[in-house]
């Protein structure tokens, strides 16, 4: 259930401790990128039924941003990693 998230720093916590920022699958465009790139980043969503990556901010805990891989239909959580660790892995 997505009502419980296992924070890599704090352990199993209820979702009420988190602020959810949504889609974590795409990177932020550069400041001078096209209007279209910024429009897509701010407004357009893939909105899949199934696996998705999201930012969850552990606002009432360690205050770290996390990347949660979750199924939007079954609410199953596959992985939770710190956002910094996620970015390092993506850069590699």
């Amino acid at each position, binding site marked *: *259930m*997505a*009502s419980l998230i296992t924070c890599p720093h704090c352990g199993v916590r*209820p*979702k*009420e401790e988190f602020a*959810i*920022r*949504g889609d974590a699958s795409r990177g932020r465009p550069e400041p001078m990128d096209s*209007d*279209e790139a910024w*429009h*897509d980043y*701010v*407004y*357009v*969503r*893939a*909105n*899949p*039924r199934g696996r*998705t990556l*999201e930012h969850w901010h552990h606002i009432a805990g360690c205050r770290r941003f996390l990347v949660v891989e*979750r199924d*939007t*239909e*079954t*609410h199953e959580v596959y992985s939770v990693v710190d956002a910094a660790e996620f970015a390092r892995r993506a850069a590699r």
Partner: protein
Amino acid sequence: MRYSAFSLVRNALSGNLNWKPHWRQPQPKSHYDVIIVGGGGHGLSTAYYLAKEFGVKNVAVLEKGYLGSGNVGRNTTIVRSNYMLPGNEPFYEFSMKLWEGLEQDLNYNVMLSQRGVIMLYHSDAQRDAYVRRGNAMWMEGVAAELIEREQLKKTIPFLNYDHARYPILGGLLQRRAGTARHDAVAWGYARGADQHGVDIIEHCEVTGIRRENGVVTGVETTKGFIGCGKLALAAAGNTSRVGEMADLKLPLESHVLQAFVTEGLKPCIDHVIVYGGGHFYISQSDKGGLVFGAEIDGYSSYAQRGNLATAEHVMEEGVTMIPGLSRVRVLRAWGGVMDMSMDGSPIIDRTSIDNLYLNCGWCYGGFKATPASGYCFAHLIAKNDTHPVARALRLDRFARGYAVDEAGAGPQPNLH
């Protein structure tokens, strides 16, 4: 068959054995002028107005489940037009006016009950915001009244006026607003559309959209290929998935919203009451059950169920506003999947594909819009031109910088 006092008596005297089904169960034809994907309130009202007002008779509505099994059967039935922004208020007032004539128009009892919607305020700042909203409504010709605390106490005595954090100081009332019977709205529109020759095809899921030379030529379905001249999407929570079949990239997220109904009580809540301290809204159905809901669950979801923490939060808000609610048993809860748009307002527009039309992004306020949504969408499909009251609701408003941000929450669907 038209309903009348005479038809009631005649059928009663013949043992109620001669009532006919409200709509036919046709097999799909090989080609339609217009196919509407989605047999909910908006799809059915679109079909009805297309046939009745705009003379497009060769229309099919495709529904993957049974008719009205989506959000039109899973909502809190509230009808109102107490909006503030110039792009929204005329649209919802147009809808309110259609509601007021709907039963005569459809020859069907949708049990419209203009019992009044009252939105409570708990601080001076919130009072000012509601005065402003009321004035914005008056500027569009819609009556609104500010009710002060003492007067409200006489009208609605059971509220928690002395709450330590959210004392109730008054409310903004729209008297013409109220509720309608949600299932009857779907059935009434279905019957009306059917009488005008629309084919309503249930248990027919769209699995693909076929395109040739850049235009849509038909849809693949679980009942085979069906060709069309124009394709109109009114698929609510599944819009992203249907849109994907035509490579549409949409400003939508799907979220789940829960609602609840209690055991039947004697009449006790006369209005629809909206709690300004949170997002809680409650009314009493004609059967006596209290019907209420609050916020979405917060994260995107296609599951037609919510989590218990949100259910608990809704109950807390309700009991904060009406302490007596703690003694009432909840009979049923349900979760509907809504397509939350990025600014909280709907989208009625053409798409980048010439004969593909889009009606989506109703967030959790689609029920009140059912008549106007159908009318404006039918106008768009029939004339290829946006209806004047829906001009602010076009898809390209995000790119142009004209988002209709009624809640002022920015482009984050879980915040409005």
